[in-house]
């Protein structure tokens, strides 16, 4: 187990004075499902958005500490954010295909890179849709608008469009919160296969999903990382009282 991303003493504050992350240190383990969970407002999404610098859009006042990815501190202003976002892909909680066809949605990121080779694009579309377990459902309607798919299919389409860039890390922020149980199961199953190839960071939408999927789990509470441990350990015998209370449903 090696660290793919190493977050060191990260403190992050929004300009309205809300402190979102307090001195968080966490190693994201390569080729594993890293689950970040806890009640709302705990700082999970803030951490994700720091990892691909999507936080640049928000009013971040201070960001102290380091995030090391491929031996580089990505908080360094000199970081090429566009390159970073291609390597650290992100899937959002509400499926939002772009107003384009299924095919164009998948290759959107590649198009932005200037890729024009038709056979490579075709190949990448099939490969990504297969990885996202969507190919069998959409192979005959690649030219339909992405928004014509069902909610579960749309979310897998959003995953496919991230995979098309062949990222090293994929972050999913409550990817199944708007989906039915069948679609949820499909996505969770997909993660188990995907982790052989890349590193996964998942913010689950409930504790059960966290327990089902976690290889490693970190429990966040009000901006602090309370506990971080292999999934089985954390859910079966948590070290901290707060973790135990949350996992057993005493609060949350």
């Amino acid at each position: 187990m090696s660290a793919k991303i190493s977050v060191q003493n990260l403190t992050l504050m929004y300009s309205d004075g809300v402190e979102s992350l307090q001195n968080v240190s966490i190693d994201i383990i390569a080729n594993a499902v890293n689950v970040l969970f806890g009640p709302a407002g705990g700082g999970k999404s803030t951490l994700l958005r720091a990892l691909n610098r999507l936080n640049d859009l928000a009013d971040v006042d201070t960001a102290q500490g380091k995030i090391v990815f491929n031996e580089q501190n990505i908080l360094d202003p000199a970081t090429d954010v566009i390159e970073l976002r291609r390597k650290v892909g992100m899937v959002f909680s509400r499926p939002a295909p772009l107003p384009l066809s299924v095919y164009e949605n998948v290759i959107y990121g590649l198009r932005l890179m200037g890729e024009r080779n038709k056979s490579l694009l075709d190949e990448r579309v099939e490969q990504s849709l297969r990885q996202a377990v969507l190919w069998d459902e959409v192979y005959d309607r690649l030219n339909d608008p992405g928004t014509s798919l069902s909610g579960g299919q749309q979310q897998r389409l959003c995953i496919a469009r991230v995979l098309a860039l062949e990222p090293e890390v994929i972050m999913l922020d409550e990817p199944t919160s708007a989906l039915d149980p069948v679609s949820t199961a499909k996505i969770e199953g997909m993660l188990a296969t995907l982790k052989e190839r890349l590193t996964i960071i998942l913010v689950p939408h409930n504790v059960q999903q966290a327990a089902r999927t976690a290889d490693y789990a970190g429990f966040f509470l009000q901006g602090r990382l309370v506990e971080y441990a292999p999934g089985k350990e954390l859910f079966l015998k948590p070290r901290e009282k707060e973790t135990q209370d949350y996992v057993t449903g005493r609060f949350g």
Partner: protein
Amino acid sequence: METAKGERWITWIIKISGYSSILFVSLILFFLAREGFPALGEVPLKDLFGARWYPIEGYFGIWPLIFGSVLVTVGALLIGIPFGIGTAVYLSELAPAWIKNILKPIIEILAGLPSVVLGFLGIQLAAPFFRQFLNLPTGLTAFTGAVLLGFIAIPTIVSISEDALNTVPSTYRHGALALGANHWQTIWGVTVPAARSGLLTAVMLGVGRSIGETMAVMMVTGNAPVLPRSLNALFLPARTMTATIASEMGEVATGSTHYHVLFFIGIVLFGISLAVNLTASSLALRSRKRAERLLS
């Protein structure tokens, strides 16, 4: 018991005001048709769509007027659309919050500026400027009218376009950015296309606003009902349908052929505005349906 009775009263009042607007519109339509359609019997169709508008001599060709309106409106849109949509994109995607908070209300106030005031500015400032700058015999041309109308249409276009851009879910933007798009690519590749139907509605309403505008164009276009022979016509005086009705209606004998033809022009104008509005609202409706599909 008392409240139930009061409720019934209120329901009735609301119902009557609702129906009355339909009634008024149909009355206007009826009146317009009654005064306008006799023109078709009095002037042969061939002459009515002839090339000369010279009512005193009995020439009632409305082509020069239709053409004047189209020329001025198209010119106005060529100015209004790029500036209007550009401003809207700036306001919604690029401007810092405090600039937006100042600019948006100002633009909306601009939309309420009486057109006669703009016409006055047109005569006093724009026309002499264009005459000198473009070396024309007169500054009162179709071009001056188009520029002025463009300025009149811009606030409408900006205001509605900006609303349309704002309703694009931020997940689209974040999704594109997270895939490695830069700000520019996100705006032109994702946000603007996603707001497409709203932007079209804005443009259509801008068209409606320009084609129906009377006062400002009457003041600055020079009022010469001539059928343009070349592109040069843009820099010559022209006259629109609205300006014709407004300037001649006061002097015409009620019930005369001229009077009926002026109403007929009104019918043509009404037809054009109706077509524009129907297109706009059907586009808006289509976008609403798409949004519903997205949410389900």
